[in-house]
Every structure is written in C-alpha cells, then in structure tokens.
C-alpha cells in the first residue's frame, strides 16, 4: 500500500475506532445495570475482534496484539469459564482505556510498543482500582501468568488470522450511518441557502411579470416551501443527540463514586435532544466537570445521607430539553447543597460587595475565578480554577450558566446553549442607512429612545437596573461621526467586562442568521464578528459586541481625558507573556494591551527568567510546551526565587488532562487556562482574578 493510501486508511480507522470505543464503553456500563443486555459480552468480544483486525490492516501491530490478548480474555468470559463481577468490569474498563491510549498513540506516530509495555497486557485476574495508572498496571502485570502475556507483534500478524467468530461481525457492521466531513455539510447548507435566495429573486421577477396573479402560482409556493424545508433539514445534518457524551459522563460518575466510596445513581432524561456537534464538543469538558463536582462535593457519604434521613444512595440527574433555538442541560444532584454564607464570606474577602445580593445572586459568584467553597483541595475538583473555566467555555459556545442550590436538598447547575453555532440569533438594527446585526446572546435589553437618560462625567447615561450604562450613538462608534444624533431605540449590550448602550435609528427585527467569520484576506476588524447572507442575497454585517464596547469606551474616555486627574492614574499592571508561538504571543499581547495592561513577551522559560530579573512584572502568563525551559519548570523556578516567589503565574495550555492540570498546580501556578476554553473574556477574567488575589 502506498503511504498516501495507508494515510487514508488510517484516517478511516481513526473514525471507526472512535465509534467502536464509544460502543465498548457503553456496553461495559450496561453490564452493570440492573438488567444487562443478553449478549453484551458477545458483542464486546466482536467489537474488540473487529478492532483488532482493522488495526492489523493499517499496520498498528502493537495495538492489534493488545486487542488480541483482550479478545482471549473475553473468550474466557463468554465461554463461562470466568465469572463476571465488578472487579472484572473495572479491569475491562481499564483495558478499553488502554485500547484508547494505544489507538491515539498509533495515530499520532508515538511509540506504541513502548506504551504497550508501560500499560501492560489487559488481564482480568487482577483486582484493579478504577482506571489505574500505568505504573500500577506494570507492577501487576509482572505477576500475571505467562500464558496470558500478549502475543509478540511479529507473531500476531493478525490480518491473516481467522481466529474468532468472523461471521459474527456482520450485524454490527450494517450501519445506517456514514461519516461525512463537516466541511461538506457546510457547503451543502451554503448551497441550499443560495438556492432559497435565488428562488426569492425568481419570485420577485414572476411577481413583476404577472402582477397579482403570481400569488396563485402554486408551483412557486410549493418550491419555496420545499426549499425552506430543505434548508432546515440541511442545518440538522450537523446535529447529534446528547447521548454522544452521556456515556462518558456516566462512566465518570461510576468511577468517581467507586473511588470515593459513595453510592450514586445516574439518570438521564431527554437524551434524544440534539445539539450542533461543535457546541456539544465544547460543552463536553464542562459537563464532565459539573458532573464530577456533583459526585465529589454534592453527594454525601452513605452514612451522612442516612443520618440526614435521606436514602443512602445519591442521585445525579442530567436533564436535557430544547426550548426554541436553545437547549437547556441541567445537572441535578440531591446532595448537601452549597453553603451560600460561605460563598458570601469568600467573595467578601475578595472585595465583592455582597450585602445587597440575594442568596441566588450570591450563589452565581461561584463562577468567579478564585471562589470555590470546597473545604479542602482534593484531586477531583475544588481548586477554584473550575467553575470559572466552565463558565468561560459555556460562554464561548454562546451560552450561559446558572446555579441553584438549597442546603441539604441539592444543587442544580443549568447550562443554556444555542442548538447550533451555525445559526446565530441576532437583533437587526438600522444605523446611518445601514443594517447591522447584534448577536442576541450579548444583548441585555432594548429600550425606547425616549427612555429617561441622564448625564454624568460628560457622558449620556441610562439606568439598567441599578447600573449606570454609558450611551453612545452606534454610528459614531462605527466611524460615521457628525451625522444627526439618532433618536431611536437604545440597545444595551454586554462587552467583555462591561456593558455599554448604543442608540440606533430603528430596530428592524430578529433573525436566525448563518454567520460566517470574516475572510482571512481581510485584516482583523475589531467591531465586526462576521457576515451573513440575507434571504434576498444582500449581505448583513454582524457586529462584535466586545469589540464595539471596547471601541466605544476608548472614544468616550478620550473625550473626557481632561477630567481625569493624575492622581487617579495608577501604573497599569505589567504582564509577561511567555509562549514560543509568535501568533499566540501576539494575540495575547493585543488582547491584554487593549484591556489596558502593559505587556512584555518572552519566547521560553529561560528568556522569561531573564526578563523577570529586570523587575516590575506583576503577572506571568505562560504556555507549557516550550523549548529550553517549559512552563512547569518556569513556574517552579519563579517559586524558588525569593524576590519573585509570590508573583501570580497563570498557565495557558492546550494540555487538558487532569494530570497536566495537577502538574501545573503542583508547580505552584495560580490558575490554569485551557486553550480550548480560551477566549478574550476568559483570559481577562483569569488575569484580573489572579492580579486581585496577588495584591
């Protein structure tokens, strides 16, 4: 097979393996349920067998050998020579984890043989802790019977092997689904949209020619209806049911409950609820975190529960439901609830004014960086770098998160996200003869232009609840100054950190717009998020509220600069950005400078220490993977140097495993931002939070 051909098959294998691993995990969890499916072990056996064969075909021999040993063990179970108990399920789950690791290593060209040695063979006759670490497995494996050792790769040659019931593969291979790249689906959605707008133009033409008769042209009406339906169906092709991630959550609940010695039941409702695949992927980590939180901090021990008059087992429920173009996912536990007074006390210590907040409002403070009520820092959660990151990633999916809790009764975490990122709900406004769209999730409220406003510090102010918000004409911010001041409605939007109000000529209406980012041909325009094609073929510019607010604030502060006395001005905080990737470094620099920080940069840990020796740095924001000295080593080096030992350090990285996070925190980092959950707002909040704590 040519290298190119092999690459193509390996890509296919990656897709197939993902599906099979998902199914394996699901089957193993079903075995534990009250009424397991009749031939679950048989199906597990077949999945492993198929995976083994496929791995051999694409030349992943170590993976294939590992699967072969697992297959032999499964045969023992299937033949009834081994008893299936909890410990065996633990071992099987660990073995499936091993498969996953080997698959990922094989696909990324890592040394799979080395990894296979480190993991050890997938044996069932050892009592394994849930998901044991590699080191433990090696230790156990040395005591394993020699007969069960993995077949050496050269002896395996599994492509030619015919052991195992090959005939049994047929049913699971007949699938009603195929893999289609998202790119192709996007292209489909675009073309269908284009067909719909062409139809609209034809409709207009026919109307011009035929006059009122046109309305009776049933062909045209049915074509329009068909196209609308086609458009909606095309959109739905990107949607996947929430079940795609619930198995992973169920597994997390199970493993964690077993580790903590708690009895936890897991219930899912609305698992058919569909979400855009990219939204769901963005939420997966957040949901995992929330669910683990519920088991770790929410659910009490069986003794504690009985003492409180509750059933000894706790329940964690996941409810998903769709409301219009939004999906709500609630994670509900019947545990001890959150101590609001503790949240208040902690927030007050960090300088929040908590006196006027209701209990529910005070509870929402747990999403702020550094406020966590976990009494002790455990391996699982409670590091204060949790819920703020969860909120950031929910917001990155254009959603929002709420928490409700009652002491002794339980906690409900509610995530509300749009069903799709392909379609964005927008408020369309008119300003200076052009229409603009404002993403609805950033719009706080729209008020009548005649609403009461007042003046302060040379600016126009509108009250939004108890908060004074500055009003600017949208046209002025967009670079059409000097036009007659608009008298139309005032729209209040959320920026990155502050709110701002914009007065427009009129509100046009709401739209579900398919928004495309600006072309790479264009330079970044901070006030524009993207564009969308209207049904009539015209182009609608979608504004970026954070950029807009930033620009508006800069122009208003410039206008009132004279009023700012020198005494009010403090030295801006100085941040050292350490990253070996120029693009990332410059991106962070521009975000931080726009937020008013002074920024220096360094290419790796060694550079950074040199720069720190010059003094005056208030915070370090560092990447992990870097040449010469990585982010963990840099953090440790900072903590060891007395003059800078207390300097806040934030680690920004694409490594997202619990172990890496742990490593960062062990090194002495104050916070850990995962790049996948990274956006401007999350970064600024983390920086703000760390600076606040460091003062």
């Amino acid at each position, binding site marked *: 097979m040519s290298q190119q051909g092999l690459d193509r098959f390996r890509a296919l294998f990656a897709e197939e393996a993902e599906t099979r691993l998902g199914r394996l995990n699901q089957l193993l969890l079903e075995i534990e349920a009250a009424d397991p499916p009749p031939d679950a072990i048989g199906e597990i056996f077949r999945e492993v067998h198929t995976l083994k064969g496929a791995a051999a075909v694409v030349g992943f021999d170590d993976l294939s050998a590992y699967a072969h040993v697992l297959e032999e063990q499964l045969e023992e179970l299937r033949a009834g020579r081994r008893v299936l108990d909890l410990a065996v399920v633990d071992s099987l789950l660990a073995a499936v984890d091993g498969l996953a690791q080997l698959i990922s290593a094989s696909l990324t060209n890592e040394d799979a043989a080395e990894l296979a040695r480190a993991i050890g063979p997938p044996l069932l006759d050892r009592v394994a802790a849930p998901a044991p670490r590699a080191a433990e497995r090696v230790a156990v494996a040395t005591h394993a019977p020699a007969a069960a050792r993995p077949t050496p790769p050269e002896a395996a040659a599994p492509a030619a092997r015919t052991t195992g019931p090959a005939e049994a593969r047929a049913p699971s291979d007949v699938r009603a689904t195929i893999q289609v790249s998202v790119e192709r689906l996007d292209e489909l959605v675009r073309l269908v949209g284009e067909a719909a*707008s062409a139809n609209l133009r034809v409709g207009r033409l026919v109307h011009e020619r035929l006059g009122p008769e046109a309305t009776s042209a049933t062909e045209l009406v049915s074509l329009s209806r068909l196209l609308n339906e086609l458009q909606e169906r095309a959109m739905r092709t990107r949607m996947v049911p929430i079940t795609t991630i619930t198995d992973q959550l169920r597994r997390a609940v199970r493993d964690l409950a077993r580790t903590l010695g708690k009895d936890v039941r897991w219930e899912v409702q609305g698992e058919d609820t569909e979400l855009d695949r990219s939204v769901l992927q963005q939420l997966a980590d957040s949901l995992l975190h929330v669910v683990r939180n519920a088991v770790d901090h929410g659910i009490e021990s069986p003794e504690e529960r009985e003492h409180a008059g509750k059933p000894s087992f706790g329940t964690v429920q996941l409810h998903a439901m769709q409301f219009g173009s939004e999906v709500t996912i609630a994670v509900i536990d019947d545990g001890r609830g959150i101590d609001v007074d503790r949240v208040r006390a902690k927030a007050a210590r960090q300088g929040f004014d908590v006196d006027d907040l209701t209990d529910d409002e005070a509870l929402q403070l747990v999403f702020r960086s550094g406020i966590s009520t976990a009494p002790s820092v455990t391996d699982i959660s409670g590091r204060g770098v949790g819920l703020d990151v969860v909120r950031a990633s929910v917001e990155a999916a254009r959603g929002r998160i709420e928490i409700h809790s009652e002491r002794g009764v339980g906690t409900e975490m509610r995530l509300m996200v749009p069903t799709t990122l392909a379609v964005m709900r927008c408020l369309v406004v008119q300003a200076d003869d052009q229409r603009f769209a404002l993403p609805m999730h950033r719009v706080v409220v729209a008020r009548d232009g005649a609403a009461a406003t007042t003046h302060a510090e040379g600016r126009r102010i509108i009250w939004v609840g108890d908060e004074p918000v500055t009003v600017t004409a949208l046209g002025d911010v967009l670079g059409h100054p000097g036009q007659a001041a608009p008298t139309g409605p005032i729209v209040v939007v959320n920026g990155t950190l502050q709110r701002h109000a914009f007065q427009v000529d009129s509100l046009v209406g709401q739209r579900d717009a398919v928004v495309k980012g600006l072309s790479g*041909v264009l*330079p970044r325009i901070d006030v524009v998020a993207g564009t969308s094609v209207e049904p009539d073929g015209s*182009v609608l510019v979608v504004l970026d509220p954070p950029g807009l607010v930033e620009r508006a604030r800069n122009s208003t502060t410039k206008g009132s600069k004279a009023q700012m006395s020198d005494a009010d001005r403090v030295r801006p905080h100085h941040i050292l950005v350490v990253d070996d990737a120029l693009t990332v470094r410059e*991106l962070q620099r521009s975000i931080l400078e726009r937020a008013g920080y002074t920024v220096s940069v360094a290419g790796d840990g060694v550079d950074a220490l040199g720069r720190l020796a010059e003094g005056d740095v208030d915070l370090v924001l560092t990447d992990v993977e870097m040449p010469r000295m990585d982010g963990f080593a840099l953090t440790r080096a900072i903590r060891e140097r007395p003059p800078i030992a207390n300097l806040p350090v934030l680690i920004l990285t694409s490594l997202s495993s619990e172990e890496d996070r742990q490593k960062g925190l062990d090194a002495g980092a104050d916070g850990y931002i995962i*790049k996948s959950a990274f956006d401007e707002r999350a970064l600024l909040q983390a920086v703000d939070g760390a600076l606040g704590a460091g003062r």
Partner: protein
Amino acid sequence: MRALLIPAGEDLYAVDTERVREVVAGPEPTVLPSAPRWVLGVINVRGEIVPLLDTAAMLGVGNSDQPAFAVVVRTAAGPAALTATAIPEFATLGTDLGVAALPGTVSRHRLGQRLVVRIDVDALVTLAHGEAPSVAVDAP
C-alpha cells in the same frame, strides 16, 4: 503567458489566468465599518461572501471609487475580489521586461503600446495587511 488584464484608472495590471475564478459586473459592496481604506466591503458571489479590495489603493496608486467590475481571484487566504475600472480582458503577455517597482507586483510586460504590470495576488494581500497580523480570537 496568458493573463487577465485589470484596468485600474489609467494603469493596466494583470493576474495569472489560473488565479482567476470569475468576473462580476457592477459589484455593490456592503461596507464593513472601520475597515482599512483598501477594503471596499464584501460582496455576495453566489452565496459566498468575498471581500472586495480596491486594486489601486492596495498598490498605492490612488483609489477606484465606483468599480465597474470585480475580478474574483484565488489567494492563499481565500477568495478575494479585485476592482477593475473597465472590462477585464484576457491577453497573452509578451517578454518579461524585468522586476516591477510596486509592492505586490512581480514583472512588467509590453502589450502593444501599453505596459502591463503583473500582480502576485498572495503578496499583494500579505503586504496590504502591513505589520498587523490578521489573527482572530479563536473561539474554539
């Protein structure tokens, strides 16, 4: 060498044929607020949003206010439309007369009594960005 001629005021520029996707007559751009001078806006080319770039402004030789045509070209960063002040035509370029002076151009060629300057669309776009990299905040 075959090329598409792009008239920009008095000047005549050329783009390699294989870079040309299509020509749009009478483009009506939607203005992007606070875009640089050389970005006239975006146009809808059969459902695809394409930036309309002012050819003369990018080359630093004036600007074309009312573009009669837009030449949609393929660039490394995606499709872009370059303005033309008169109808673009195909031509075979004669001998290479050496390096052209303007940023984003590669060579000069004689065509009858006219001197045609060949554009490198990728270089033109990159140079127009100046030092500011176009890095979007990556919403994952």
